């Protein structure tokens, strides 16, 4: 073989070594082949490679070594010969004490010296530290009977390949670290998804998210912003790693800004910056300045094709998120968007359910207390109506026969100031109190005064009650009445054709202890009519938030003055419903009409 051919062959081999080392994903798997090539190139027979176990990057002290590759070992150094490979050796000790510093080092091999069996005459080896920077990752040994066997050319080759191996090993180590991190990320992501899907409180979920994203991406800070607060702005909903907690500070940033967040909201594209401090200083918002952030990455939370918020991570060192990290950040932002949306929907659903349940309970209480049918008294007409609102109010009415001559009847209409189950319960209590008090006391003003004191004594939720209470003598036609802050009942007097209010002074019940109520009386003649109602009638609202008002109510009553109690009541309810249209009313619609029948009619 000519020397030229020889050189070409050697170079080809060297190139092959370099390529295999550069391209291998698992460097250890190609070390064997590279070693064999090298040994052949050096005109030698034997070589081996020991790798140091990673020790957190520190040299010094004894390290653990593993035999990572070997070529053509003599029988005495067979890998199955435990004695041969147990314990340390000169070159490893040199390495551990930082003395294996030269490109190659001539070492009289302690292992070969002490081992029994066929050594094939080998006694020395050239040891090359496999380095990455100042860290020694392993030792490459090529062995020979004596130093004369190493030509200068061969030693050159040895150092070249040694440095290539070092680089390749470092690359592989970094790759392994990344692999490990990504493995960790995959696990974290799975865990994260499960967490997100199982969490139902939005705030807890968002806090969890920012903490985890920050940890996973090894970022200094992470924050999640959603639209809210001021229109056209994003507010911080969760943050991790900030010096000044932007959530506690209720920080908001404009959606239409020209920097990262604004851009992301408009374009739905991530915005990455290696160092925001390199911007024109005026282009760095104060809230970023104070945190001394440099690296910034902002991604959108995409919900149904639009930006539902942003997720951002910051670094106090310059850092440009790489593709893999960005991929994870976006993945998490999307997961978060879905989870937040789901949670929001779930919360709304629960709210609706709770409302419906409350509504049902309230209704039961309310309907259970209302008289099942209007009273039937000869010479009198009674018509009643209760229309439940969307929310349960606390309206009620009641009729009860009073003890005595059997011609007196207590009548009450009332309204609790509040909604929901508390109002319904207070209503139940109030109606019981009014009935029991009414059965004992004769005069309406006394009844209201006593009810007022009883309610004032025990008002758990600051609820008040408006009530109009009257006692009707069905034989004489006399009505005695008192009012505690309730809509004044209306009296249509057939004889004069006038509609009048039953004015009697009185403050809403439960507001002040020990107060008195004015008491008045009128005489009802045939054709006269009374309308007792709650503010659900006069305060019925239309789409423009206009209320029906007393004038309209009066007009309806007057227009139907000659009709039966039921007809008048129906006309009023029709008028209210016509007025409100399809607008859901927030108040119950409650009223009753009493009419003294016209004799002979």
């Amino acid at each position, binding site marked *: 073989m000519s020397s030229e051919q020889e050189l070409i062959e050697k170079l080809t081999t060297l190139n092959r070594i370099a390529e295999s080392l550069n391209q291998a994903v698992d460097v250890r798997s190609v070390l064997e082949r590279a070693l064999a090539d090298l040994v052949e190139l050096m005109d030698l027979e034997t070589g081996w490679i020991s790798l140091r176990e990673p020790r957190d990057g520190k040299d010094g002290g004894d390290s653990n070594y593993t035999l990572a590759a070997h070529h053509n070992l003599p029988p005495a150094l067979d890998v199955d010969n435990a004695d041969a490979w147990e314990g340390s050796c000169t070159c490893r000790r040199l390495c551990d004490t930082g003395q294996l510093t030269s490109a190659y080092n001539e070492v009289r091999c302690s292992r070969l010296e002490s081992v029994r069996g066929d050594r094939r005459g080998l006694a020395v080896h050239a040891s090359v530290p496999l380095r990455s920077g100042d860290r020694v990752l392993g030792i490459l040994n090529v062995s020979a009977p004596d130093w004369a066997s190493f030509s200068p050319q061969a030693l050159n080759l040895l150092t070249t390949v040694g440095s290539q191996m070092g680089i390749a090993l470092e690359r592989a180590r970094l790759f392994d670290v990344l692999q490990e991190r990504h493995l960790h990320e995959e696990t974290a992501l799975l865990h994260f998804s499960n967490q997100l899907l199982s969490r139902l409180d939005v705030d807890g979920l968002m806090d969890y998210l920012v903490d985890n994203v920050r940890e996973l991406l090894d970022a200094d800070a992470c924050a999640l912003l959603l639209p809210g607060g001021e229109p056209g702005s994003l507010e911080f909903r969760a943050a991790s790693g900030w010096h000044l907690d932007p959530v506690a500070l209720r920080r908001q940033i404009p959606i239409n800004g020209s920097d990262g967040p604004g851009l992301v909201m408009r374009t739905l594209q991530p915005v990455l910056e290696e160092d925001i401090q390199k911007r024109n200083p005026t282009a760095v918002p104060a809230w970023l300045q104070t945190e001394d952030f440099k690296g910034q990455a902002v991604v959108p939370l995409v919900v149904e094709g639009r930006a539902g918020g942003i997720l951002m991570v910051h670094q106090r060192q310059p850092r440009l998120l790489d593709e893999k990290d960005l991929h994870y950040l976006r993945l998490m932002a999307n997961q978060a968007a879905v989870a937040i949306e789901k949670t929001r929907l779930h919360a709304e659903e629960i709210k609706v359910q709770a409302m419906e349940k409350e509504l049902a309970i309230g209704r039961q209480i309310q309907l259970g207390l209302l008289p099942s049918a209007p009273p039937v008294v000869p010479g009198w007409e009674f018509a009643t109506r209760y229309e439940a609102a969307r929310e349960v109010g606390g309206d009620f009415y009641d009729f009860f026969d009073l003890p005595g001559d059997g011609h007196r009847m207590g009548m009450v209409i009332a*309204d609790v100031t509040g*909604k929901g189950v508390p109002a319904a319960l207070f209503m139940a209590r109030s109606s019981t109190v009014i009935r029991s008090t009414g059965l004992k006391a004769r005069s309406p003003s006394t009844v209201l005064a006593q009810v007022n004191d009883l309610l004032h004594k025990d008002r758990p939720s600051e609820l008040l009650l408006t009530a109009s209470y009257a006692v009707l003598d069905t034989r004489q036609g006399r009505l005695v009445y008192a009012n505690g*802050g*309730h809509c004044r009942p209306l009296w249509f007097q057939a004889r004069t054709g006038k509609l009048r209010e039953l004015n009697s002074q009185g*403050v809403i019940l439960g507001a*002040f202890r020990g107060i008195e109520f004015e008491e008045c009386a009128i005489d009802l003649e045939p054709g006269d009519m009374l309308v007792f109602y709650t*503010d659900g009638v006069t*305060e019925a609202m239309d789409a423009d938030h206009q209320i029906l008002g007393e004038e309209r109510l009066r007009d309806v009553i007057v227009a139907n003055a000659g009709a039966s109690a039921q007809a008048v009541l129906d006309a009023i309810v029709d008028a209210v419903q016509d007025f409100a249209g399809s607008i859901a009313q*927030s108040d119950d619609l409650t009223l009753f009409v009493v009419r003294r029948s016209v004799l002979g009619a």
Partner: protein
Amino acid sequence: MEIVISYENGKVPVTVFHIKGEIAAEASEQLEQQAQDVLETGTHNLVLDLTDVAFISSGGLRSIHYIFTLLHSDSPEDAKSMRKGILAGTYRSPHLKLVNPSRNVTRALQTAGYDMFLETYSDLQKAIASF
């Protein structure tokens, strides 16, 4: 509903709530909360400017009563004189005043008997000067 708060000086410091919108539903709670907040920071005299209030629900009335109770001490003497005054028609809250309620709101206040313990002024400055 919106509440703008201003702090005025008559003979004594007076806090004014300029309320805008409807006092109903959640707005009632908001009103109560705001009142609680200013009371905690030293307000003893409060004016509710109702110029821009179109409507007050029964819940809203309850809130006004609640604010009234917050502003008045629970001492038995006070309660007794208040009760007597309400009966005689001579009592008006020295700590809570109303300004310029609309027709609807006036009507609701009267119906509930609030005119028996709260004074209403047509002019904010007069209300502030009345403390």
